[in-house]
């Protein structure tokens, strides 16, 4: 009941391969699954596991992230004993105002780590969309007497050549090897950028690592700890499918996967609601002529045309005769009469003109940037 686990979310990922989607926003602020941003899942995972104290390390482009999380109210993360701490890069006139990576970010936010009262801390990067019960992970960590527990998945889609971090595990689940960005991964266990450990230990390790001139959390610090053999690192396998959001195509696939009932169920259970910023939209209006199949449709839409195999965010208008197939349409976009779009990602507030036609392949979906009219 009393909190013994704090949370920390790092949002400083490099996002070049997400192209237009992350030009003006951080990865964590990326809209997903019809009414969320990626951070909503990261935060809700923590809150639903009883974590009442979460720090969010901001890097750059965080206006949309600030706007989304506001006071933390939607996640019950406002208050005195509980709460959300925003950790913007500490800018003095002469500093460079950006973190070299997670380790650097942790080092710069030692104050947050020190000030907390919780015994354990769970740290999540924001490159995966996943559902995780931290209370189970903490139990696993304690049951196994681990020093550090890393969350991983055996999911094949999460395993990517040339990028990613992979864990070698023995039969007891102890991490024996850590591979970083191998051209050909040797292990099938993909680390999802989520770890849990004693808070004091993390402080110690970060302190030592940075004083030794290390820069990378996984590549150097974890690998070195492992090599020295003093640290027991356990692997905790995720029991649901996570999605690695590193490219436009991966982003597209993750959203489309939510059309499958099993995947949807893994993200949305009534006891563990995913909280997000409210818009107070009315329910979606379907006209007499609308035809919608196999799609997610959020509140506040007006659907007069046809929608198939798509994810429709809040406040989208699809006019008569318009046809949408295999698309992700972000909030407040307007698809005018007779327009036809297929396999596209429409960012927020885009407008597709009357009778305009756009068609791509699912393997390489088009991205229409925010606010554009085409």
């Amino acid at each position, binding site marked *: 009941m009393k909190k013994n686990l704090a949370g920390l979310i790092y949002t400083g990922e490099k996002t070049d391969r997400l192209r237009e989607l992350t030009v003006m926003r951080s990865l964590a602020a990326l809209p997903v699954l019809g009414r969320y941003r990626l951070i909503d899942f990261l935060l809700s995972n923590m809150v639903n596991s009883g974590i009442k104290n979460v720090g969010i390390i901001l890097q750059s482009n965080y206006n949309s992230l600030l706007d989304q999380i506001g006071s933390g109210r939607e996640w019950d993360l406002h208050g005195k004993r509980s709460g959300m701490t925003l950790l913007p890069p500490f800018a003095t006139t002469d500093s460079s105002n950006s973190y070299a990576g997670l380790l650097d970010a942790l080092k710069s936010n030692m104050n947050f780590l020190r000030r907390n009262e919780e015994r354990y801390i769970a740290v999540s990067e924001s490159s995966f969309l996943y559902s995780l019960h931290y209370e189970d992970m903490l139990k696993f960590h304690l049951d196994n007497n681990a020093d550090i527990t890393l969350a991983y998945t055996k999911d094949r889609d999460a395993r990517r050549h040339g990028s990613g971090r992979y864990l070698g595990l023995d039969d007891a689940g102890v991490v024996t090897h850590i591979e970083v960005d191998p051209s050909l991964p040797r292990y099938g266990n993909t680390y999802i950028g989520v770890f849990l450990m004693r808070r004091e230990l993390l402080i110690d390790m970060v302190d030592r690592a940075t004083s030794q001139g290390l820069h990378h959390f996984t590549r150097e610090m974890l690998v070195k700890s492992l090599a020295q053999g003093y640290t027991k690192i356990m692997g905790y396998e995720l029991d649901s499918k996570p999605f690695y959001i590193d490219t436009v195509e991966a982003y597209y696939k993750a959203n489309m996967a939510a059309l499958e009932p099993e995947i949807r169920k893994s993200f949305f259970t009534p006891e563990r609601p995913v*909280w997000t910023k409210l818009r107070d939209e*009315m329910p979606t209006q379907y006209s007499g002529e609308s035809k919608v199949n*196999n799609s997610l449709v959020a*509140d506040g839409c007006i659907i007069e045309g046809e929608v198939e195999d798509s994810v429709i965010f809040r406040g989208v208008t699809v006019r008569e005769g318009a046809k949408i197939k295999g698309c992700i349409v972000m909030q407040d976009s307007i698809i005018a009469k007779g327009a036809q779009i297929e396999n596209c990602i429409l960012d927020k507030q885009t407008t597709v003109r009357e009778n305009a036609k756009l068609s791509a392949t699912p393997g390489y979906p088009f991205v229409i940037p925010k606010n554009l009219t085409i």
Partner: protein
Amino acid sequence: MLQKKQCVAMLLAGGQGSRLGILTRHTAKPAIPFGGKYRIIDFPVSNCTNSGIDVVGVLTQYRPLELNAYIGSGTPWDLDKNTGGIFVLPPYSTGKDGEWYKGTANSIYQNMTFIDQYNPDYVLVLSGDHIYKMDYSEMLAYHIEQEATATIAVRQVPWEETHRFGIMNTDANGVITEFEEKPANAKSNNASMGVYVFTWEKLRSHLIADENDPNSNNDFGRNIIPNMLSQNEKLVAYTFDGYWMDVGTIDSLWEANMDLLKDPPPINLHDRKWRIYARNVGRPPGYVGEKAKISNSLVAEGSDVNGVVENSVLSGGVVVEEGAEIYDSVLMPGAKVCSGAVLNRAIVGENSVIEADAVIGEKDAEIAVIGNNTVIPQGHKVAPGVQEGK
């Protein structure tokens, strides 16, 4: 002690609301779901928020728990402030024993101390069973301009319906000269909407006088307003011409839901400048399945629709299985309709389950109502006009 407020709102959340039958057996009327994601009380309370009124007292003595839980800290309506808020006000005891609310006026009388805390110039009195969007600040400005004791919002109803309403007869300047409760032969078609602005000082003394009158019913319509008129207080009518619907009966509740499906709907809930706020329950987007056929309907988030849905309002968390058919119906949050079931002109309460092949209601017939948390067994038939459930 608290910060002075120009105007405080008092919402008469009412008694059991027996005309809504089974739907209010375990729920106060203002907490009844409406329009797919709202509850009735969201309308007057959001109107307050949007009108800049930030102190709202909710007067109720009937099952306030659900209302209390729904209202919570007032966050959804921006009413969780240091200097204001929304308060559920049941009767209470000042010494050995307390007194239940005897009438609408008495409920305000018993909470005079609450109102006095804010030292307001005006008090807005509202009802908890009307669906409408109204800028109370304009009505208040009219009240101030007219230097009235009371301003009563009226709307013009068809002459043939005047016998169902409280009718305000006014002179050419809009000053009320006479109030007739449900007149057989009305002299005007200005019907009271149950929305009043009072100058607090005046209302306060009238409430005290009314309380001391042993023959009074302690009711606004029957006592306070007629007494004010007879004492030559200035009462003015404020004409409202927007959408307004009393949802105090099964038929009107159904009808008001159906109004949202008209093209264009007579009440615009898309309006960004006049949002109707509601408590959020964190549901995912709605899913519309491969075989779903939705037409002319409202469908809220958290729903999973795989059957046929026509001219209906589906609330959050509603599940419609493949092969189910729903026509001209209202499904409240969490209701489930199984394969082969057919609904026509039905209202289905929260978390109820219509099992496979059950038949509820009929086309062009009276509304059939299923209560909350009710299971209608497989193949069972519920006739039009029937209420079934817990």
